[in-house]
């Protein structure tokens, strides 16, 4: 499902001058702006920028860094301590993206869903709730915990069904602690070959600006947009077919 990075949207767009007026809407005093659920980035009325909403589920073992990743992607304060998440938490973040062909700019509104492993284990309704109407899943492992890497395949097949139409990405966390790394480059390469899924690396115990999160957010946006385009075209084919049969009946 995943597409070649940069084939649909402009990669590293945040570095280009023409992106400034869009990115400035998601920033406040050099940090990411916080939005309530009733809010969205404000653009001048004549610019007419569409916002598309996606639900993204973050999955992985306890302590692997799910809550930390959600905070990182939204540019929020990074949890230094590991406190178990005892329920479902969502984090909304906006991300402007420029489509390559049409030069159209869109705001992606990602809603990251994060559920602590212990809550997931103790309460049956957590997993179905996270999967309800989900558009993408991030599967996490930690570079400092080999077990979490080896469990990946298990995790993916446990949570997804082959019929699910969801974007899947893999994220390796704690890449900054390379001294303690338990997972090698060749492990990752082999995994990519077997599963055909992209693997992203994140690390560092602070959220360090747009550049750090741009590759992952752009890839997510690109894959989701691609998935929607395919769905839309199959729907239009289906409706075309349907209307044809209709006419036949009338005739």
């Amino acid at each position, binding site marked *: 499902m995943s597409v070649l990075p940069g084939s649909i949207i402009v990669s590293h767009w945040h570095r280009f001058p023409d992106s400034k007026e869009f990115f400035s809407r998601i920033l406040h005093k050099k940090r990411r702006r*916080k*939005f*309530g*659920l*009733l*809010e969205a980035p404000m653009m001048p009325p004549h610019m007419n920028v569409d916002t598309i909403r996606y*639900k993204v589920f973050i999955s992985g073992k306890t302590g692997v860094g799910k809550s930390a990743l959600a*905070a990182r992607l939204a540019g*929020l*304060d990074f949890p230094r*301590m590991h*406190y*178990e998440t*005892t*329920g*479902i*938490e*969502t*984090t*909304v973040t906006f991300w402007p993206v420029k489509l390559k062909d049409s030069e159209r700019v869109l705001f992606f509104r990602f*809603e990251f869903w994060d559920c*602590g492993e*212990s*809550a997931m284990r*103790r*309460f049956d*309704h*957590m997993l179905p*709730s996270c999967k*309800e*109407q989900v558009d993408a899943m991030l599967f996490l492992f930690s570079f400092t915990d080999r077990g979490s890497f080896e469990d990946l395949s298990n995790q993916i097949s446990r949570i997804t069904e082959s019929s699910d139409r969801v974007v899947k990405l893999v994220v390796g966390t704690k890449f900054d602690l390379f001294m303690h790394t338990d997972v090698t480059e060749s492990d990752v390469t082999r995994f990519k070959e077997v599963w055909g899924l992209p693997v992203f690396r994140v690390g560092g115990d602070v959220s360090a600006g747009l550049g750090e999160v741009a590759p992952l957010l752009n890839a997510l946006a690109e894959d989701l947009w691609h998935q929607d385009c395919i769905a839309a075209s199959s729907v239009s084919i289906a409706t075309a077919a349907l209307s044809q049969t209709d006419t036949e009946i009338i005739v």
Partner: protein
Amino acid sequence: MLQAEALQLLCLTASSGVPLFSRGSSKQLPFSIIGSLNGVHMFGAGHGAQLSSCETEHGSRVVWRVFQESLMLIAVSGGGGSAISELQLRRLLENVWNCMVMVLGQDELANIRNVERLKREVRSCYHLIDMLLERINDGQGMMGYLTQCADCVPLSNSGRVQETLDSFTQAADSEFGCLVVHGRVAHATEKWWSRLAPQEVVVLLALVYSLSGTSSCDYPVFLPQGSPTVAIRLLCFQLLPGVQVCVLCGPKPSLYQAGKELLSRFWSPLLETLRGCLEQTDRSILPPSVNLRWDVQALLLINRESRRAITVCPRVRGGASANATPLLSSARRLELLTHFYTFAVTRYFTSEDVSPASPASEPAPEDFSQGFTHVPVQCYLVTDECKCYGLQSPQHQLYLLTDLSVPTFALRSVATQTLSAITAATGF
């Protein structure tokens, strides 16, 4: 035992004294001391005496309490400048226990089958416990942890917000809804006040506060008194940064549905109103129609019937005379307010401990007042930093901190005026 200002919380199994966890100050107490603390309590119990607290000459304190005959919580504080009172430690233990029940349920805690497993499970309470420990002296203007009353912020002309909250709650298949502004209750449904115990509201608000960074959440919670063995769901939505709406509900609606179908339908029309509320509370906890005297340094007003409280700590003083002494720092004023509250409820006023839920095993804070046949309704205290005046009626308690410049004989009328000014303007 501990350094000044340090605070530590220990949890052990009551029957065998196995330590489950210890939180708080970075330097942990040595195992031998933990053992002795448990031992001395057991020794007392063996002789029919219940050890509940002790104090050193330097203001260090230890407070013990056993919950459900299953777990023992011990709070140990170091002395020093801002010594923590026994009442604060006692409340801390109560709040910690209630948080543990809220997260894990009573069954898990009251019937220990496997200690190792429980040790793992209690980790999920650390976030709230650490927050309670941190905020014991820095509630940022919130005193609910001590008063066991819900911290509130009275909003002016807000009938529409209340109506919207009521219908939103109903649409979410619930009767328990609450609008929280910067951690304080701005509005709640009728059942939220009438059916939840004040102690439950206090820990629910602590949980909601701990979630203020997230956009929405779906947390399973047990209510320590109303539903200690069956989890219900707390749904919470961040409408604006600093404004959260929460409901307690059953299996439906799912977080996804509630977020998608209900949220903007009910709340989008109120966006500007909510922004206004937020601005108002950023300026002052009290609505602009209330004019406090300029020499009021801080106040705590408790509604004893509904168990709600407002804490006010003005940021600037309006209309102060030129030779007025500058305001004390707000942290200091809150600290003084805490001390005065503790002083008054342990000596003169009935503390708000009267809930049937507080077990008989808890000893009365102090027996000083028991020699009196009457209930004091007013009290005052003059220190070298400020003057304090407390008054209580069947419905309210007011704790007031003023400048030294207010003549002592005038304190009573300042307090009565302040009380009627606030209640008239807010209906609190």
